[in-house]
């Protein structure tokens, strides 16, 4: 019963979020601010994770494909496919659920307990739209960009691991990277990312927006937002993969 009520509350919040902005200019400025805060500020962590993720995928694939009858360039191919199909969109989404999700929930939760949200309401501002809408739009716009960067850096990490570690030669790896390229997979990954971005930003905002209590409650909301975002990401991942690839 409680979960039905919570879901109803979430839908009600989304209804308020997507209403007409009071001042489009201010909202646009807020979207740009959120892109910087949620997106650009995540570039470093995404790059570091992607570099090592690509390297590890290459080393592990190299270990599995030690059979001399299997062409070596398939290591580059497998690295590319793993990164595009799964590692970059899903892994990065899970990382962003932790970094961005907790930041959104704690920011909005603090605004709630320090009465800043009440202050907005009393001014006659739709607080849900003003606070949450720019975060959702910024995430949907910028997360696909982060995932695309992650794919590129991941492949570069794989390239470094393959060549510096002596797993395969440079031309073999590069041949694998361009072998049998399916552009639809990129589309699939970006579609997934858009859904993940919406889930992370809206779920985290929800837990922050309905925080009740003090500082302890803000921490709880932040934790809940990460846990629920991660679970929803995995469920969306399964459903979209079934719909788009199966």
């Amino acid at each position: 019963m409680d979960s039905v009520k919570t879901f109803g509350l979430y839908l009600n919040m989304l209804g308020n979020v997507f209403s007409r902005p009071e001042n489009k200019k201010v909202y646009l400025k807020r979207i740009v601010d959120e892109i910087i805060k949620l997106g650009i500020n995540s570039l470093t962590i995404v790059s570091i994770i992607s570099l090592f993720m690509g390297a590890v995928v290459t080393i592990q694939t190299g270990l599995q494909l030690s059979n001399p009858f299997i062409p070596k360039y398939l290591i580059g191919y497998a690295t590319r496919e793993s990164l595009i199909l799964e590692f970059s969109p899903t892994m990065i989404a899970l990382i962003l659920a932790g970094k961005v999700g907790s930041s959104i929930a704690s920011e909005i939760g603090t605004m709630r307990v320090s009465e800043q949200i009440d202050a907005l309401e009393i001014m006659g501002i739709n607080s849900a739209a003003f606070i949450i809408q720019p975060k959702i739009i910024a995430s949907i716009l910028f997360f696909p960009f982060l995932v695309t960067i992650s794919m590129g850096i991941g492949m570069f990490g794989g390239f470094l691991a393959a060549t510096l570690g002596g797993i395969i030669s440079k031309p073999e790896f590069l041949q694998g990277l361009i072998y049998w390229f399916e552009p639809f997979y990129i589309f699939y990954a970006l579609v997934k990312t858009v859904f993940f971005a919406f889930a992370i930003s809206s779920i985290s905002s929800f837990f922050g927006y309905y925080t009740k209590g003090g500082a302890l409650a803000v921490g709880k909301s932040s934790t809940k937002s990460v846990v629920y975002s991660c679970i929803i990401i995995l469920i969306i991942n399964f459903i979209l993969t079934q719909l788009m690839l199966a």
Partner: protein
Amino acid sequence: MIQVKNIFKNFGENQVLNDINFTFHAGKTNLVIGASGSGKTTLIKCMVGLHQTDSGSILFNESSFNDLAKKEKRKLRKEIGMLFQGGALFDYLTVEENIAFPITMFTNMHDEEKRERVNFCLQRVNLTNVNKLFPSELSGGMMKRVAIARAISMKPKYLFCDEPNSGLDPQTSIIIDNLIQEITEEYNITTIVNTHDMNSVMEIGQNIAFIDKGRLAWSGDKESILHSNLKELNDFVFASKLFKKLKI
């Protein structure tokens, strides 16, 4: 003028407001006083629409808040300024941006006009050279003054203050109290101050409602409060040794 009529409010089984009737006059500092947990914050939150009343009506110059459409409520809210207990300043904005915030959202004022209005509001609350500071860089008293400046930036008709003196030293409290009274009289605002500070009551209490266990137990002004025979009110007013001496 704001009138509250037959206000009831329950939180689950707990009755917080029980048949409150009172008139808050324009150009006067109207005080809602009572012990912690008596229901005064709930009353104020019902009046500004942050809580829904279970029954009863709240009339802002004869028009019932509860009967207004969503759009009209938003319009009315632009005429309301509120000073929160903790200030509720937006911590990601500077003092200047905080005060200009409602102006930016609801008017087409140019930057220069906005700056003039912000400076005027800051001068009105006796603050200078704080425009570029963030709320975290301000003292408690300064924060309250900035919050007042933000509350009056849109020239409100109604000003609500929730415990404006909490966390302040007695001297700063008096400054804030006097500022609220001056602004109220200067702009003929209907001001409602929610407090349990007896110093404030004696300083600015022009029209006082005493709430006890969710009921309006007494109403009057700062002169008559000292001569009431109501036990609950006397227990509240003369709780401190200083005021006990005053009674004798």
